[in-house]
């Protein structure tokens, strides 16, 4: 049932990419436990606006956990403590009255802060453009049923394709590695016969771009899988490595 709680928020405020940031404390009162975390921030921003202060900037769009836009590190955990949840789907009923909650942006050299809790994740787009596709021209596709795909492969490809590109894997990884994101895309495409044709060049180019963006190396800690809102398995990373080794012998 609905009740209300009071919280103390400590939020990372940073006015511009090159500005110095700091944690600022805010008290939020009478937060309905039915609210989502972002709705709680909406209410805080309403109050700040009314006081003539600048609202806290944070990214969000679909607010149903699929677009991958939102992302806040809450008390040290990207997207907060609930399992398989994006921050837009995290509800206030999981917080205790009087709790202090720390909000920080994704931290990675490849994800520079734009303002407050908003970061630039265009590195992910550059990795995809390096090879995260199957080169097929519009109109040139044969009938969809010409190539049968074993159901288990299709299902596994779908598990991998569920990635929403939020970047929580990078944010959570002690090495700020993008391996789960890249591995998921490489796995999805290499599991399908349509994607096998370019498998070698794809993995080489995507990994090269990933490295050029200065993401760290995966050291198999599996924190990425723990925070992934879509619970993508690190078997994706192993598959990427297999594809990489295969490509090296081509």
């Amino acid at each position, binding site marked *: 049932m609905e009740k209300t709680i009071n919280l103390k928020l400590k939020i990372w405020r940073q006015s511009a990419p090159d500005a110095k940031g700091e944690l600022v404390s805010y008290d939020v009162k009478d937060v309905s436990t039915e609210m989502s975390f972002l709705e709680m921030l909406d209410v805080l921003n309403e109050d700040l606006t009314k006081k003539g202060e600048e609202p806290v900037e944070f990214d969000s769009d679909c607010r149903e956990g699929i677009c991958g836009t939102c992302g806040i590190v809450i*008390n040290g955990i990207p997207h907060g403590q609930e399992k398989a949840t994006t921050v837009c789907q995290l509800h206030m009923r999981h917080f205790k009255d009087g709790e202090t909650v720390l909000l920080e942006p994704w931290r990675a050299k490849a994800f520079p802060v734009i303002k407050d809790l908003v970061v630039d994740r265009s590195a992910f787009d550059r990795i995809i453009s390096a090879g995260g596709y199957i080169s097929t021209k519009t109109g040139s596709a044969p009938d969809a049923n010409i190539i049968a795909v074993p159901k288990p492969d299709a299902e596994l490809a779908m598990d991998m394709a569920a990635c929403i590109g939020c970047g929580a894997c990078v944010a959570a990884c002690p090495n700020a590695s993008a391996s789960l994101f890249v591995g998921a895309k490489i796995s999805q495409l290499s599991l399908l016969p349509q994607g096998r044709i370019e498998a070698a060049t794809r993995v080489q180019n995507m990994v090269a771009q990933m490295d050029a963006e200065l993401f760290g190396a995966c050291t198999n*800690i599996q924190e990425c899988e723990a925070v992934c809102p879509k619970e993508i398995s690190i078997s994706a990373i*192993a598959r990427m490595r297999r594809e990489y080794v295969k490509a090296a012998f081509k």
Partner: protein
Amino acid sequence: MRFSQIFSSTIGKKLILGITGLMWATFIVIHLLENLLLLNPDPDPFNKWAHTLISLGPIIYVAELVLVLSLLFHIFYAVRVTWENNRARSISYVKTAGKGGVSKRGLATSSMIYTGILLFIFIVLHLLHFKYGSYYEYEVGGVVIRDLYRTVHEYFSDPLNVTYYIVMMSLLGLHLSHGVWSAFQSLGLNGPRFTPLMTKIGTGIAVFVAIGFIGIPLFVLLTGGAA
């Protein structure tokens, strides 16, 4: 892709770490099995086995070279990867917390570079203490061979040395508890049945190695050292 490119990518570096790590893990397990002969009150079997190895001549030199080189590669790439991984997050969080669940984040994963460096120092000292340590000879069956058994037993009659070994071998266990399964994952060897098994085997090896290498010095100390 040129084959050499492998060595400059994040994946390639981890491949090398995995391969060299597994080589050392294998060596360590064999080394422990050999050293179990130290538990034998009769020094002869141990010393004879050591002598046999030494007598292999060029083969043993090649093996030693491979071990030394793989260790150097392991260290070089570990330092490099750690440095690059630190660079990948130039501004750190005010607070970090593990999410738990499947995450393996913990003492072992966060201390790999430190346990690794300490173990490297340990290996150098270990060689100085034993391989290049006090040299005794005696005659067995008409052949004069080195009494390494005595060197070891002398060394472990000092409780300080034993304590040092307990600490270092705990660190080795810690290193291996993440290192072994992680090496397989780094090589891309992962499967729904294989990986859970590998993590168990990895932990098993870590525990076995740590207990074994702690047990030997303790045994020697408690049974009074070189008789």
